[in-house]
């Protein structure tokens, strides 16, 4: 896993940088512990096939978490991302199979809808929490309208991506790392990223410098929409069908993943590599719990306790490094 962390680790670990990367490091430690627990229960986990199996469930969550991180970097929170991902699986299981061109257009329109949502939030000064919560019901309604009961099939190319098994490395690592790299380039290295983080950090400064906060917010929402579509496609490739409520837990799980990865509610910071670690950590929890034979009824509660424990670890490390 060291290659996952490498870009997050600074060249010169100053105290301030250590403090910022600490949450991701804590999450990474938790992740390694969980993989170790899995391996001790089921030695096959450490093979390429085993790791693929364990990690594959986390890929859509990690991508959705990157979408959440993009919005949190401008200081907003998206409570609709779960149903949005679900709606994308519905589209890919229905229209994308019957008429691919229309399906692709619908997916593009969904990205545009996110951009419009961002513009509305900015212009009407609605709290993003409320607006995205409202939008989540719209996504749910559209999904139920198109596909009332889970089902459908996925396009062949998507299904073959889902079952792709390269030799030598676990396939799910590829999308996780590729998406993190793209988001890193966009939010941390490019001038667009500076605009987005500047908006989350100090909108007044942005305005004084003559940059339009509206443009920054719309770009962030469009990015989040695109990542949400990607997450939905990956989820559909794994489940082999569409279900609008298949990802409804993502809305809050992604927020937890961002926090685990070192993001904050205040906006201004982008932590794509940390989010990748945080998302995988969060996704692994349910795998570990299944392997430990924790009753399904108890899993959610135990999952919550583990997340709280990791967050507590983050707080403690942050205090020590202050």
């Amino acid at each position: 896993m060291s290659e996952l962390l490498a870009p997050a680790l600074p060249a010169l670990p100053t105290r301030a940088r250590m403090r910022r990367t600490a949450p991701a490091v804590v999450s990474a430690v938790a992740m390694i512990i969980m993989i170790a627990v899995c391996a001790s229960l089921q030695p096959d986990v450490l093979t390429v096939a085993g790791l693929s199996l364990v990690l594959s469930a986390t890929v859509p969550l990690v991508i959705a978490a990157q979408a959440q991180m993009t919005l949190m970097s401008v200081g907003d929170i998206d409570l609709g991302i779960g149903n949005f991902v679900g709606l994308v699986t519905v589209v890919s299981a229905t229209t994308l199979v019957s008429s691919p061109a229309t399906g692709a257009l619908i997916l593009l329109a969904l990205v545009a809808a996110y951009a419009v949502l961002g513009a509305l939030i900015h212009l009407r000064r609605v709290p993003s929490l409320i607006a995205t919560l409202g939008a989540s019901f719209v996504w749910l309604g559209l999904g139920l309208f198109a596909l009332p009961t889970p089902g459908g099939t996925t396009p062949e190319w998507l299904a073959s991506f889902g079952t792709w098994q390269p030799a030598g490395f676990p396939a799910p690592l590829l999308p996780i790392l590729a998406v993190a790299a793209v988001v890193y380039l966009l939010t941390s290295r490019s001038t667009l990223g500076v605009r987005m983080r500047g908006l989350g950090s100090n909108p007044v400064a942005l305005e004084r410098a003559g940059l339009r906060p509206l443009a920054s917010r719309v770009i962030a929402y469009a990015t989040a929409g695109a990542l949400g579509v990607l997450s939905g496609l990956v989820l559909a490739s794994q489940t082999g069908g569409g279900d609008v409520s298949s990802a409804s837990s993502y809305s809050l799980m992604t927020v937890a993943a961002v926090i685990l990865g070192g993001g904050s509610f205040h906006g201004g910071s982008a932590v794509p590599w940390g989010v990748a670690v945080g998302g995988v950590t969060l996704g692994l929890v349910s795998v570990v719990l299944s392997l430990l034979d924790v009753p399904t009824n108890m899993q959610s509660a135990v999952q919550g306790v583990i997340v709280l424990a990791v967050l507590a670890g983050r707080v403690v490390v942050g205090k020590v490094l202050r």
Partner: protein
Amino acid sequence: MHVHNLPAEPFAAPRGADRGSSDRQPVVVARHVTKTYGRTRALTGVDLEVRAGEVLGLVGHNGAGKSTLMRVLAGLEACDEGTVTVGGRETSGEAGPRAAEFRGVRMAYQETSLCPDLTVAENIWVSSRHCLPRLRWRRAAGDAVRRRLGEMFPGHGVTSGDRIEDLSLAQRQMVEIARASLVDRLDLLILDEPTESLGPDAARSLYDYVRRLTAGGVAVLLISHRIREILSVADRVAVLRDGAVIADRPAAGLGEHDVLALMGAQVADRAGSGPAAAAAGEPADRPVMAELRGATGSGLHDVSVRVGAGEVVGLAGLAGQGQQEVLERLWRPARRDTKVHGSRAYVPGDRQRSGVLPLWTVAENLIVTAMRGIARHGLRRPAEERAAVGSWVERLSIRGGPDAAMTELSGGNQQKVIVARAFASAADLVLLDDPFRGVDVHTKTDLYRLIRHEAAQGRSVVWYSSENAEMAHCDRVYVFRAGRVVAELAGEEISEEQIIAVSFAESDGEPGGPPAESGGEPGGPSAESHDTRNRPSAEPDGARNRPDGARNRSDGAQSHE
């Protein structure tokens, strides 16, 4: 159009070739400029000319319209009537941050306009992106800011990859000033209270750089509460009062008192409201309200302070020498060496962080401490509360009245509310933690009078101030150095000169002398000031690198002339 060319530009191509003569080119001209917000007329007709190659000092108390005028001159807001001409071209009616005419006018804000989560280089991109290449902008911005910071503040200790939130207050201010100065063609640089958080060395090198800038033909508009600083740096001083420029004089030959008088201050006459008026003669006879006896630890060394009933006790000296620790002990008398009789109220210095409840109204902010005393059986009594609030609002003439939102008030009026909150309670001992920083002269005079009046009623006040002149309103003053009381002054002994003398007595043995000139080390990096501020250090550096060192330095310099 390349930042690489920037730093040398003002010196390499001096535009003000005809400088020295009185007919310098005007860079920005404001004619009959008015601006109204709602019911308040912020600017009532300003005429101002900033000429190339000069430093224009702008003074005025809070609410005089300084910040509005700055926003208009920097092109952030359009004026209602009148015209603003930049470089000979009249600006279009709808100015905005994107107005092209104002590209050469740059402003360094007092509270900085940096994004705390971004790095220094990224912040430079935000404000100077027009002059940066599209590719490798990060490196170009980093190089430019590094070079400019090196010219302005040698030994600044900032690297371009640092995030702003990790920098000290002084370093942030340095980056803000460098940020404002980085543009391909600088015509006018507006500096709003630039030295408020800078150490004396940094302030001096900033003004050295300002002189080099003006020598290259750039105009500089300097705004500061520190009138002596303005007088020593500026070529011309403009006085703003009630939204108009009421005086525009050459700085040479102008004294501090002249400027204060122009600003409309009834210059706080020490003889009238000072300690002499209050019976300061027999402090020993008063009953003791609070006492510190040989307090040691957490920044204090064997500090003994006694506060009598009805006494105003000042804590003076350079900032960060243990005064706030004394207030802290009196506020929470946990240790055995601290004795406090009666109830206490505390007025914090940082009103934004620890004083104001921004969502509440003036009335609620004012009464929150006294509420419990007024209430009966745990139930509030609105009528009595309103009466109390009304009398305080009237007494301190707080603008906006009791129902105004707290954030609608100007800084000075907010401060009045915070002070009134403490005095409206039934507290016997009121602790003031440098509450009047950045407050205009009018408000200060009102509050000084309030303090004296309340003391005459038998209340005790412990007052820490970084402004030595304020100490003249105290009965007794303890001067602190490195966590020790180095002097106790009473009555007639209290004077600014005396306080400065004892504050510096140990450090250079030359009372009143400018300490910055005593040690011959020029490169004392003021960037380190942040680390040393709360640590009482025996060596003079710890003291000098504080903002107030800057004040005292200029004070000292003044007394030398």
